[in-house]
Each structure stands twice: as structure tokens, then as C-alpha cells.
């Protein structure tokens, strides 16, 4: 095994404590369900006897460590509990809805990176220029605008006033059939079967929610890109490169921005954290049938077990994303390879 592979494996092992922590917290949260979980699961028409029965069936009388091991065993078997109103297993519903959330999150991420990184770099290179001011305005807006508010304003302007956007209800208008599932991303799947009309319909639905989410995540990315770029540009090695006559393009894009990307990669962790949270709000505004709106629906009917299933699923997803970031960083920065 090469040193790089070893290092990647080492990073992967480092994610285990985080997973253990996440599962523990999640267990604590499920045991803290409002009131007595047994009363809660027994429903409003329960009697003393039926509650006791449920309590025994759920194993709530057992010592906590045993309950914890049972919880972990259930998790390993893929059991996150069932949804109260639909009766379907939480995991099954989450997996079904996950592609919708991923499609939204990823397009927003790509969009915000595509805008924020060049903007941040350009703002640093042309410090104090109109680009820098535009960046500051955008970052300030991104920081202070609540995502759900941005979404609503966009809907009002682009749907109600201008009529450019379709009604903010889900991933695809009723007139289209959802494409056969390959990736789960409607736009991609429609393109795969060559159905341009459906693809464009899905894309139109996607634009507003993705932009809303992108505006929110743009702020930390652009700010970090600019700060990191400024720092890189004022470094000694840039002075060396200039003194050696390297072209401005090589100095800025070859030397400075490569170094500046390191702190940006680290920021991505925070960005993902914000994004997965904001995702819930955006999905609610646009009735997007992802896992966020699933959680909101569960909250409305007080199905707290389903909410906890969602929280755990998101946390595991986030741990994996952070692992991905760590590994990327390890591969990019030679200084981390010393272990």
C-alpha cells in the first residue's frame, strides 16, 4: 500500500469517533422524546395497560446500555424506525427522497462555487475595484438574508410578477412525467433518455431553489476565497516568483490561487453544514420533495421519531462529506503527508 493510500485510510479511520459521537447523541435525543415515548407511541386512546405493553415491547424498561446496543444493532440493520402517519420505514422514505435533496444541494454548490471562487479571487487581485465592491454587497446580502426569505422574494418576483418561473411546487410540473430513474436527478435522467422538454421543465423548477441556496452559501465561500487569496498574494513566495520574472498569470493562477484553495477546501465543511440546514428551509418554501420537507412534515404531525431518523441520516451524510473534504485536503497539501 502506497503512502497516499495509507494516509487516506488513516483519515477514514479518523471519521469513526465522529460517527460514534453522532450515533450517541442521536440515541440520547430519541430517549428524550417529549414525555414518555411509550405514551407517545401508544397514541391518544391508550390505556395504562397498553402503555405498559408498549413500554415492554420497546424495551424501555431495560438498562440504558442495553437499549443503546439494541439501538446500534437496529441502525446496523438499517432500521431507523417507522413513520407514524405513513407507517413506512423511515430509511426507505429517506432513500427515496434523497436524490431530490442531493440534486438541489449539488446544483446549488456548483452554482455558488462557480460564482464565489472566481469572484473572491478577482476581488483579491483587484482589491478595492468595482468587483470587490460587488463581492462585498453580495456577501453582505448572503450573510444577512434568511434563506426562506430570499426564496419567497424570488418566488414573488420571478413567478408572480414576471411569470418567468414555474409555480414553486416540487421538482416537475404535473404536465410532465418523471423520467425513468437512473441517477435520481431529474434533469440528468431526462437528458439521458433524450427528453429535452422534460429536462428543461425540471431545470426551470430547479433554478429558483438552487439560486436561493447558492446565494446563502456564496457568502462564506467568496469571503474565504478573497481572504485566502489576499494572504497568498502577500506571501514571500509570490514576491520570489515575481522577482524571478514569472508571468502575472502564472503568479496569480499557478502559485497564489493554488495555495489559496487550501483554506477554501477547509471552509467547505462549514459550507456543507450551512447548506444541509438551509436545505430544509428551501425545500419547505419550494415544496421540494426531498428529505428536508419530509422532516418538516414529520414535525408538523409531531412524528418525532421520524425527525430523529432524519437528523441521524443528515449527520452521517455530513460526516462522510467531511471525510471527503479531509481526504481531498490530504491529497492536495503535501505538508499533511508527514502524518
Amino acid at each position, binding site marked *: 500500500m502506497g503512502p497516499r493510500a495509507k494516509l487516506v485510510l488513516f483519515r477514514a479511520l479518523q471519521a469513526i469517533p465522529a460517527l460514534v459521537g453522532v450515533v450517541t447523541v442521536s440515541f440520547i435525543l430519541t430517549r428524550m422524546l*417529549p414525555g414518555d415515548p411509550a405514551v407517545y407511541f401508544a397514541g391518544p386512546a391508550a390505556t395504562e395497560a397498553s402503555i405498559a405493553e408498549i413500554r415492554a415491547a420497546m424495551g424501555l424498561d431495560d438498562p440504558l446500555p442495553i437499549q443503546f446496543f439494541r439501538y446500534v444493532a437496529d441502525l446496523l440493520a438499517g432500521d431507523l424506525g417507522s413513520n407514524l402517519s405513513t407507517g413506512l420505514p423511515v430509511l426507505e422514505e429517506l432513500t427515496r427522497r434523497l436524490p431530490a435533496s442531493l440534486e438541489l444541494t449539488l446544483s446549488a454548490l456548483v452554482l455558488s462555487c462557480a460564482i464565489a471562487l472566481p469572484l473572491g479571487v478577482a476581488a483579491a487581485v483587484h482589491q478595492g475595484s468595482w468587483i470587490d465592491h460587488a463581492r462585498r454587497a453580495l456577501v453582505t446580502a448572503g450573510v444577512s438574508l*434568511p434563506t*426562506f426569505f430570499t426564496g419567497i422574494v424570488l418566488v414573488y418576483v420571478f413567478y408572480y410578477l414576471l411569470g418567468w418561473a414555474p409555480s414553486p411546487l416540487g421538482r416537475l410540473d404535473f404536465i410532465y412525467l418523471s423520467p425513468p430513474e437512473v441517477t435520481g436527478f431529474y434533469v440528468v435522467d431526462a437528458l439521458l433518455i433524450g427528453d429535452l422538454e422534460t429536462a428543461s421543465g425540471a431545470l426551470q423548477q430547479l433554478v429558483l431553489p438552487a439560486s436561493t441556496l447558492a446565494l446563502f452559501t456564496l457568502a462564506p465561500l467568496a469571503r474565504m476565497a478573497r481572504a485566502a487569496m489576499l494572504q497568498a498574494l502577500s506571501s514571500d513566495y509570490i514576491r520570489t516568483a515575481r522577482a524571478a520574472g514569472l508571468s502575472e498569470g502564472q503568479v496569480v493562477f499557478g502559485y497564489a490561487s493554488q495555495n489559496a484553495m487550501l483554506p477554501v477546501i477547509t471552509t467547505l465543511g462549514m459550507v456543507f453544514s450551512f447548506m444541509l440546514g438551509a436545505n430544509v428551509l428551501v425545500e419547505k418554501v419550494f415544496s421540494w420533495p426531498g428529505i428536508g420537507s419530509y422532516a418538516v412534515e414529520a414535525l408538523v404531525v409531531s412524528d418525532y421519531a421520524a425527525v430523529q431518523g432524519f437528523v441521524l441520516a443528515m449527520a452521517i451524510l455530513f460526516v462522510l462529506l467531511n471525510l471527503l473534504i479531509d481526504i481531498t485536503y490530504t491529497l492536495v497539501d503535501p505538508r499533511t503527508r508527514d502524518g
Partner: protein
Amino acid sequence: MSATTPESPPAGSGRGFLDHVLYVLGENPITAFAFALFAMIVLVALFGPALIPYDPLESNAARALQPPSADHWFGTDNLGRDVFSRVVVATRLDLMISVAAVSLSFVVGAAVGAVAGYWGGWVDAVTGRLVDTIMAFPLFVLAMGIVAALGNTVENIIYATAIINLPFYARVARAEVRIRRNAGFAQAARLSGNTDLQVLAFHIFPNALPPMMVQISLNMGWAILNAAGLSFIGLGVRPPTAEWGIMVAEGANFVVSGEWWLAFFPGLALMTAVFAFYLLGDGLRDIFDPRQRT
């Protein structure tokens, strides 16, 4: 020996703190604006409820869904309640939630972070693991989980927001204390007879405070956003209580049919508050950093 040395003393001597604040505000109009905005929000939170033109909870079907007018500056909602009055009244609740949450996490986070940063060892290892575990969750999602587990109340919104803010303070405090733990002035303080606790409390902590003040201000905005986000998805504050997040949520249903003012004004208020705290962060840094005081 010769006392005439080439040591050029920098101009200006010790000014009063107030002078310095005024100087910074005069230097930077944006900071002055942020302070004005902040003062306004505090005043509205304190005196707003006494000055509003209508009862924020009184519904009146006859004047439902009226657009903004001279009578109803921000229009009326679907139950005929005055949106302006509701937005003003909500200021106190939103501010209270975020101030309570941020103070709570600042006190706990700063103490834990400072102790971990100064002494290191197992305290550091344990708190570090705890903070990492909180950070292993997407924070807003964790807040949802906490409120869902603790129960759907305003207090629990505060606790949840405090918990998800905790890592930031703990980390900033730890880092700021740690880089100063073996600084020359900390060593000098030990030689001057200060015990470890005195070194931490009188020498290191005051120097670590400015970056934390900036963090507080930035986090305050974030805390408001989170609390409002939680009530937007139906947690914490219950109708008919006036709160910005829930008002935007209620108003959202009417935006598609063109009644924009229901959601717009509370959203605007929310944005203004976050914006003010965000600008304040930079302003505070100028004021608390003694190197700026010349």
C-alpha cells in the same frame, strides 16, 4: 550614559475609551451606521410594544389582506391583524431569544475553551471531543433534533441555539488562549508572581476577548437566523404569537397570489437585525483592538 537616543516616541498618548469609540465611529461611517441600527433595534425592542398603533393579536375579518396604506403601514394579514404592529412587537422576542442563546453559549463556551486552551491535557481532549461531536452534525439540523427531543417551546429554541453556537466560542477561546499561553507577557506574568489562574484571568483572557467579541456579534446575527428558521418550520413559537420567522412562514402562502407584504416586512426586519449585527462585528473589532487606539 547617553539619554538622547534615536527612539522616536509614537505620537499621541492615552486617550479616553469614549474618545476612542467616537474616533472609530467618525473614521468609519459604516460602523457608525451599524451602531445606529443596533441602537434602533434595541429601542424598538424596549419601547415598541408600548407605541404600536394596533393590538398585534386582534383579528378583524373586515380588514383582512389589505395592502400597505396610511392606516396600516405594512398592510394587514389574512386575519386582519396589523402587520406593522406585529413586526414591532416581535422584535423583543426575537432579540431575547438570540441574546439569551448567545450569552449562554458565550459564557459556557469561553470558560470551557479558555480552560482547555490553557491547561490542555485531558480537559482539552474531552471538551475537544464534545465540540467535535456537535460539529459533526449539520448545525441547523441538530437544532431541529434538539427541539424535537426536548419539546417544542421557546426555552428549548434558546437551548438548541446555544448548543449549536457553543463550538464557535469554545474554539475561538481555546485558540486565542492557546497562542498566548506561552507568549512573553504570560511568562512575564508568571515571573511576576501570578498564579496560573491569575495569568489566565488577568493577562491572557482580556487579550483573547476582542476576537471573541467579534465572534459574538457575528454569531448574534446567525443566532437570530437560526431561531427564526426553527419557527419558520413550525418549531418553538406557536401562533398567534408575533415572531418574524413564523410571520414569514404564514405569509409565504400568500406570496404566490401576490399579497407580498405579509412575508416581506417581517423578513425585512429579520434581515435588518442580522445585517446590523454583522456590521457591528467589524466595528467592535476596531474599538476593542488596542493597537487601533492611537
